[in-house]
């Protein structure tokens, strides 16, 4: 390969695509992000809350989208599609067509006047048709780019030029362009990442669900919109038929999943169980009365992820009803209600009435996406997902093209984010020699020192076309600004954010020697960065700036009260001026980076992470507490897809040992850690001290051995009782004795999902079933029984479960009230368990009893977490910074996690996570210095009492007690500027730069003057 390109094409603007784009763009690659619709955000933007944290989806997603939209090195191509792709890894040629938006994105100010006047109502696809939008529309309120688009399918003007055209007439910015045409681009990129997501299964063909036949039957995705505050019901939970709040809601699981008869989707959609529980929990929160009777009808409750089982248990405790039953048909009842008839596990018929039925629909690949994959030559599996393998979880059949998110298999947000980073890593690994070759960098003139100058404040009052000016008397506000102390310049602009006004502002700053600037316009959340950049271009520090939000929080919310709105605008300007007066220039903090990594733990995760970084040229120290490499993986026979683990592991070890960038140290642990991102110093048990910019924690976990107690089942007492891993060992050793067995029995959930370990170990169902299948292969006449609680073969693993049943392996369900009883019976083993379906006790006589025992956290993880100031879950696994969107980052910057120490997971997810951790670490290692927050806390030593309130409330361990002075000291590299310490300090000894108490008081007091 000749020198590869330094740019990457990411296809799909959902959370996976956005994450991949950000990872790449932040680590030195130019990204083209192609999105089919008019805005990025994908399916996640349609969700109300997310499990298991109940985070507001829009709240956590929006900042990422905004970042993506503003990124200098991300070229956002919305309304675009791939026409063709050719070339080879390192140099692909891609043809893209961008469909016309008919709205000039440079001019559109997203004021919404156009949509208000547009006479054409069409079903809103973002609300899944539950509501209407106009033919000119914003995909959703937080859309990025925040620009309207005209839907050519429905626009009256575009259909019949000369008619309508209202939008063009009312647009204050002149942004409507009916003459817009499709554009074609030919891009050259080094790699391609496919993040095309999924579409929800449509149950329309399943007549028995009543969908599209009974008004109050909705899909889970539709119900997300019903719950969403920005949805058709504005967050008031309503049912479609009469807009009344439903009091009794049923969720029907596995609609379009685990169904090879009607839906032709044999796989499990992985997310629906948790989504249903979440919706049940949230529906109660949304309900005015709070007494929603929520019932979930399910086959197996698949709460296999981190924090899921606890969420499930909590939901049960809160009274959400879980019925292990399936409803055949949803029937209408009086008053648009719905009646369901179902057999309980004993076969008794029950009937219930509900006000609303939610169908938990599965995920599937959009046929349009299938065509694209086909055209690109990407192989798909029988389920129409992109084909990947356990050892190469983000690689497609075509080299240089990677996949992440639900395109490869149904999965939740965190796993999609992990894979996005992992896919980015693969692109980085492929193209690393061309890092920073195609990226852009912004240069600014040196900044004027304004310390000694008295405030010279300039105020720019925006009319925003008529968005502000039609309500607020902007001239009066401008005149008023002139009268405020320190103001030496004030001006009214039609569009302050337009390029010509921005240029003029920069000139004014220089000409008038302004040293503080206030812009009274829209919201700082979207425009602050733009104006701050203008300050820098004009040669003054960007922190000498404030905004007065006189549009979103004034003219738009007091449309019928111009007088009060004008008064409020004056007040807001006065407050901003009062605050800006106290603003100080702040340094653009950064921390120099030691370009090497420490990886702790040399299992599959650690070795994969180490290789992923070393292959990009970053030196890695890989430490392992044991005397050989391999970790927990040494005990595995094969992946669920059937690939042998030991040969893979041997190869991995060989690659690690042969890599001259990796310094391997066995029998080594960590003693002490100091420093922060970019500059860690770590003392190892061999006495050496290591300097490194980042650390990846991959210390693994252990297998629970039920030597005694309730889950013992004669383990350690009868030689024929094994754990899964012990049976794997016999497989690895090719133990011939196994083929002679008559009866093998597996007990699931041994030590998992029990009071002392209230989490699901995620891997054991699949692992046990795969072992059972292997035993069947060894001896097809062997009788095999699986004694289980819920089978949790999520995603494509469901095929294994189906295969196991097909082969005659018998599954018997038990619960904690009816545990299987194991005893010894004339030398052999005897197991008794009640079969709930036939209602009889079944006695088995296994020659082999296998216990699917829990994966449990290592006991010493707590110490490690303290060293790196990382948090732990109550179960003892390490806790990431954010369960959804930062799944491999710790809250401590520069430290990442991967593998079993995070949560039990199969090999493929471990590998993804290791690669994701490496990608995240690469963001730091790829640069000479990492930016740090400028608005940080600051300690006044005269006032500090050393009482340590600040250190205790700091979530980032950024404030610590200086042992010498006994007073607080802020690590500005860690401080995020939240101000929790400031509010906690009784002595006013700690303050936030430019958001100090005095400044806030000045703003408050200014608000009250002349109100």
């Amino acid at each position, binding site marked *: 390969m000749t020198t590869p390109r330094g740019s990457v094409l990411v296809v799909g603007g959902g959370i996976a695509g956005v994450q991949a784009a950000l990872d790449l763009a932040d680590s030195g690659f130019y990204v083209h992000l192609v999105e089919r619709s008019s805005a990025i955000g994908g399916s996640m933007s349609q969700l109300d809350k997310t499990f298991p944290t109940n985070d507001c989806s829009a709240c956590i997603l929006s900042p990422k989208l905004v970042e993506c939209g503003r990124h200098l090195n991300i070229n956002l191509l919305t309304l675009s599609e791939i026409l063709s792709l050719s070339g080879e890894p390192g140099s692909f040629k891609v043809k893209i067509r961008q469909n016309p938006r008919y709205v000039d994105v440079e001019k559109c100010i997203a004021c919404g006047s156009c949509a208000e006047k547009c006479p054409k109502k069409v079903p809103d696809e973002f609300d899944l048709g539950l509501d209407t939008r106009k033919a000119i529309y914003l995909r959703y309120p937080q859309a990025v780019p925040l620009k309207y688009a005209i839907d050519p399918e429905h626009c009256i003007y575009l259909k019949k030029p000369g008619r309508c055209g209202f939008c063009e007439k009312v647009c204050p910015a002149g942004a409507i362009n009916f003459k817009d045409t499709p554009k074609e681009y030919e891009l050259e990129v080094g790699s391609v990442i496919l993040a095309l997501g999924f579409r929800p299964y449509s149950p329309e063909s399943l007549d028995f669900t009543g969908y599209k036949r009974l008004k109050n039957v909705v899909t889970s995705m539709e119900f997300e919109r019903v719950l969403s505050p920005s949805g058709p019901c504005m967050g008031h939970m309503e049912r479609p038929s009469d807009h009344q709040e439903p009091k009794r809601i049923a969720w029907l699981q596995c609609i379009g999943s685990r169904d090879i008869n009607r839906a032709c989707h044999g796989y499990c959609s992985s997310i629906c169980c948790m989504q249903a529980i979440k919706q049940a929990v949230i529906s109660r*929160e949304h309900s*005015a*009365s*709070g*007494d929603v009777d929520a019932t979930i009808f399910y086959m197996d409750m698949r709460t296999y992820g981190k924090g899921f089982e606890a969420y499930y248990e909590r939901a049960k405790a809160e009274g959400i009803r879980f019925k292990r039953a399936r409803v055949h048909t949803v029937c209408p009842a009086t008053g648009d209600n719905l009646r369901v008839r179902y057999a309980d596990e004993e076969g008794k018929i029950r009937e219930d009435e509900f006000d609303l039925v939610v169908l938990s629909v599965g995920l599937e690949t959009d046929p349009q996406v299938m065509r694209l994959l086909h055209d690109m030559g990407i192989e798909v599996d029988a389920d129409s997902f992109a084909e990947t393998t356990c050892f190469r979880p983000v690689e497609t059949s075509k080299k240089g093209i990677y996949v992440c998110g639900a395109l490869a298999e149904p999965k939740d947000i965190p796993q999609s984010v992990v894979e996005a980073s992992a896919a980015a890593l693969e692109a980085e690994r492929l193209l690393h020699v061309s890092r920073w070759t195609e990226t852009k960098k912004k240069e600014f003139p040196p900044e004027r020192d304004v310390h000694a100058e008295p405030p010279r404040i300039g105020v720019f009052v925006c009319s925003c076309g008529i968005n502000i000016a039609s309500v607020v008397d902007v001239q009066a506000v401008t005149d008023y600004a002139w009268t405020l102390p320190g103001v030496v310049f004030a001006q009214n602009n039609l569009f302050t954010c337009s390029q010509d006004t921005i240029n003029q502002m920069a000139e004014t700053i220089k000409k008038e020697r302004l040293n503080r600037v206030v812009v009274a316009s829209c919201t700082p959340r979207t425009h602050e960065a733009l104006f701050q950049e203008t300050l820098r271009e004009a040669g003054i520090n960007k922190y000498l700036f404030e905004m007065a939000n006189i549009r979103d929080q004034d003219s738009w919310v007091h449309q019928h009260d111009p007088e009060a709105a004008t008064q409020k605008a004056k007040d807001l300007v006065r407050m901003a001026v009062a605050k800006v007066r106290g603003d100080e220039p702040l340094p653009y903090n950064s921390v120099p980076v030691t370009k090497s990594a420490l990886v702790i733990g040399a299992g599959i995760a650690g070795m994969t992470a180490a290789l992923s970084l070393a292959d990009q040229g970053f030196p890695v120290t890989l430490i392992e507490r044991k005397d050989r490499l391999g970790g927990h993986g040494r005990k595995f026979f094969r992946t669920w897809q059937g690939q042998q683990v030991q040969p893979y592991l041997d190869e991995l070890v060989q690659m690690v040992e042969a890599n001259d960038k990796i310094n391997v140290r066995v029998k080594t642990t960590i003693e002490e850690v100091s420093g922060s991102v970019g500059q860690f110093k770590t003392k190892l048990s061999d006495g050496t001290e290591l300097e490194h910019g980042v650390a990846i924690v991959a210390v693994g976990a252990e297998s629970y051995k039920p030597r005694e107690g309730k889950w013992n089942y004669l383990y350690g007492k009868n030689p024929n009782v094994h754990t899964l891993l012990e049976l794997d060992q016999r497989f690895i050793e090719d133990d011939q004795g196994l083929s002679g067995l008559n009866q093998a029995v597996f007990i699931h959930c041994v030590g998992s999902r029990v009071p002392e370990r209230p989490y699901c170990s995620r891997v054991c169902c699949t692992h046990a079933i795969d072992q059972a299948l292997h035993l069947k292969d060894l001896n097809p006449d062997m009788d095999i029984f699986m004694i289980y609680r819920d089978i949790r073969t999520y995603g494509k693993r469901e095929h294994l479960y189906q295969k196991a049943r097909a082969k005659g392996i018998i599954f018997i369900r038990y619960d904690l009230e009816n545990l299987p009883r194991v005893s010894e019976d004339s030398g052999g083993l005897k197991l008794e368990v009640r079969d709930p379906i036939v209602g009889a006790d079944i006695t088995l006589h296994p020659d082999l009893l296998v216990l699917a025992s829990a994966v449990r956290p290592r006991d010493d993880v707590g110490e490690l977490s303290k060293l790196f100031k990382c948090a732990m879950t109550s179960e003892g696994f390490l806790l990431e910074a954010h369960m959804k969107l930062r799944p491999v980052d710790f809250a401590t910057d520069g430290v990442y996690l991967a593998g079993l120490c995070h949560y039990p997971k199969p090999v493929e997810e471990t590998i993804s996570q290791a690669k994701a951790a490496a990608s995240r670490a690469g963001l730091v290692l790829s640069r000479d210095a990492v930016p740090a927050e400028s608005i940080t806390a600051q300690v006044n*030593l*005269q*006032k500090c*009492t*050393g*009482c*340590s*309130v600040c250190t*205790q*409330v700091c979530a980032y361990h950024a404030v610590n*007690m200086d*042992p*010498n*002075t*006994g007073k607080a000291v802020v690590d500005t590299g860690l401080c995020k500027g939240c101000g929790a310490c400031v509010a*906690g300090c*009784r*002595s*006013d*000894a700690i303050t936030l730069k430019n958001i*100090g*108490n*005095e400044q806030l*008081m000045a703003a408050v007091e200014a608000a009250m003057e002349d109100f």
Partner: protein
Amino acid sequence: MSTMNEKITEELRQKARQLLESGRVAAFLGYASGSVPMVMRPFVARTPEDADRLEWNSFCVLNLANYLPALLKSFEPPRRPNEPPPQGPLPKVGVVATGCWSRNMVVQIQENQVERERLVIIGISSRGMVDRKKVQALIAHRDVTAVKEGDNTLVVAGPGFEEEINRWDVVRDNCKSCVHPDPVIFDDMIGELKGERDLPDRFSQVEEIEALSAQERWKWFTSEIQSCIRCYACRNACPLCYCPTCFVDDSRPQWVGKSIDSVDTAIFHILRAYHCAGRCTDCGSCESACPMGIRMRILTKKLQKDVLQLYGIEAGMSVQEPLPLTTYKKDDPQDFILTESLKGEKK
């Protein structure tokens, strides 16, 4: 036969003497009689001989914890800012502590104001201290020249009178409503631990005010503080008020005016009390120190009640347990959040 306090005094002197003689402590902090009856002053015994001046009676009302940081500091070698602290152990100080004082010491330890290793605490389970103002009220504010204390009585004498008073009648309100008379940390005890007191109505004073209307409460509050002369004796007596620059003295930012303007006085009392939230042990020093007889302790008692009710925490009960405002639970009560209560109202 000697009274309980006399026995305690004897034992205290003996223990203090031993500590000083053995060199285990450099000083011992206790009480000695002052020149005025019913006023005990904190006293630092520095020699074994000094120990004999220590006394224990029902007038030991000022919280000794308040004096500890300065006393400990006096035994540290002087050093410049940023200079590392001296290596090796520093001299220790002995101190006598009842329940509330020991709890104050716990808070001081949690807030890095004293080090547990440098304290030798002689614990005494408190029987309640006497409110001098109550005694004076009972004898119609006549001059007192001598007070003789029995186990359950006080004999108050002055020019031309001698009256016997039931001791419990004049015990301070905070002591009467105290449920933790025992020290929670100590190295040695004088007498037995008494155990917790069961007082269902310990917050009755607070509850009475809570039962008033907002208007009446404001009236009560303003009339209570109207005599305040902003002398800050309450603040100075409080072991929790140790900021080098108190917010009342600060001008950047100036949270409160320095005058005795009624608004400023109100804000002073609100913020002073609020700063004690979750930390105050109801030792009563503030009230005992107030020259104007303002009952500001009810303010901190209110905070104590809410912290206990909302978070199940009482200040100073354990060094390990974080202070209530430096920790949280995900399911802390939040009925007061408007968006939550609006939800509730709809129910």
